């Protein structure tokens, strides 16, 4: 079979499967990024806390998730998740083996890894917001919620965007590791296509090209978003 036939969208081609898998990769990365944003901002808050115990917790989280191989974390969640799910299942009188949903496990594992990197991004962005602005907001009588919503978040968001772009790229690449627990995303689909057509080289090249397109496109999007966000910023006249 020639290349075009292999990649066609018809019955014998792998085009549709790969496209669907690419969608799955994007979905997985997005979910992981959301998990990472929630946990990551909590970790950042812990690191910036005045209480020493919270700072310790934040630091330990960073050390753990940035120092342990991603693959091990994924194994922990997959096999550990299966054990926990099995226990809950038996608790309620069920029998047999329970499958852990790979998407959930994957999004959680990659998300928690991404959180450790996002925490640093948010922490840096928070520190970049001028203290005077928060004091001014306090001085004109804004409540805590208002200060966060109107002053802090819009600016943290702006400073965090370049860093978030990097984290997104990293998470996108980490999501390929979820293929080991059987979720059919881009990596897994390339593997399956390569194995059944015996065209390993072709399909890994095609899979790699898909990743390249995804990272390239999202990099472009982040650049556009950055220039948009920077529009209201006063420019440095010397720059």
């Amino acid at each position, binding site marked *: 079979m020639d290349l075009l036939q292999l990649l066609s969208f018809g019955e014998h081609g792998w085009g549709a499967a790969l496209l669907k898998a690419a969608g799955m990769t994007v979905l997985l990365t997005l979910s992981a990024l959301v998990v990472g944003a929630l946990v990551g901002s909590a970790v950042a808050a812990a690191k910036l806390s005045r209480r020493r115990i919270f700072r310790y917790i934040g630091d330990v989280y960073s050390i753990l998730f940035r120092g*342990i191989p991603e693959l091990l974390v994924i194994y922990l969640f997959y*096999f550990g998740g299966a054990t926990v799910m099995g226990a809950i299942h038996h608790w309620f009188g069920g029998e047999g083996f329970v499958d852990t949903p790979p998407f959930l496990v994957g999004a959680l594992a990659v998300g928690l890894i991404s959180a450790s990197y996002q925490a640093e991004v948010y922490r840096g962005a928070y520190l970049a917001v001028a203290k005077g602005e928060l004091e001014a907001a306090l001085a004109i009588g804004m409540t805590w919620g208002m200060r966060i919503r109107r002053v802090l978040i819009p600016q943290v968001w702006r400073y965090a965007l370049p860093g978030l772009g990097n984290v997104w790229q990293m998470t996108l690449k980490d999501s390929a590791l979820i293929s080991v627990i059987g979720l059919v995303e881009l990596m897994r689909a390339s593997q399956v296509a390569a194995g059944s057509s015996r065209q390993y080289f072709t399909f890994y090249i095609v*899979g790699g090209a898909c990743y390249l397109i995804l990272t390239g496109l999202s990099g472009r999007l982040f650049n556009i978003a950055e220039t948009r966000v920077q529009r209201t910023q006063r420019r440095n006249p010397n720059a």
Partner: protein
Amino acid sequence: MIDFAFLSDTMLKLLAALPTTLSLFFASLSLGLLLSLGVVAMRVSRWPFLSYPARFYIMLFRGTPLLIQMFLIYYGLGQFSAIRSSFMWEILRSPYGCAVVALAMCTAGYTAEIIRGGLLSVPPGQIEAGLAVGMSRWTLLYRVIGPVTLRQALPSYSTEAVLMVKSTAIASLVTVWDVTGIAQQIIQRTYRTMEVFLCAALIYLVLNFLIVRFMSWVEYQLSPHLRERPVQRVATPAAETPPSL
């Protein structure tokens, strides 16, 4: 509750795989560094036919997951009989060789960008000053550009080294029995995820801690100019005694 016998048994099995992880790390890091020097030399070249291939290389290896690169090398290249009959087959036919090649090529892409960042931070005035005192290109590189770049690039490089330690775990997916590979094997046999995970995680954490410590020690050694000058302890007895008025 805690099964110490199982824990120590697991730890011993994992430590037996530590040399594989370490040799993967050192081999790929040093090969990657060598390769990245070539890539960065091409990248900063004024000639487009040198700098564009380097740009392409960096984009390629930074834009795709390491896993797919490793699979491409391990499963993909063996498909061609030209490669199977060439000298490269000696390296590429073993999973270990493929893992080292993939890791080295991948880290070379990242390291090249780190070094380029360091190069760009060399103040142009210093280069001009070097030229003004009549340094040759090599002397300039060796005396001015090299040291400044090294100092600038070291913190990022230490991050890259930690990422490399973590990346060696991926080699277990092409059947290299490193720490992660053995850990996964034990987990699948015993289903005691938490204990095995703790042991393996501890090994990697200690390894990364040592690397970070070593790198910051090197950094400290390389930046004496940033430290405070030793306080001169010349006897000034008048200042020692508190003024009594």
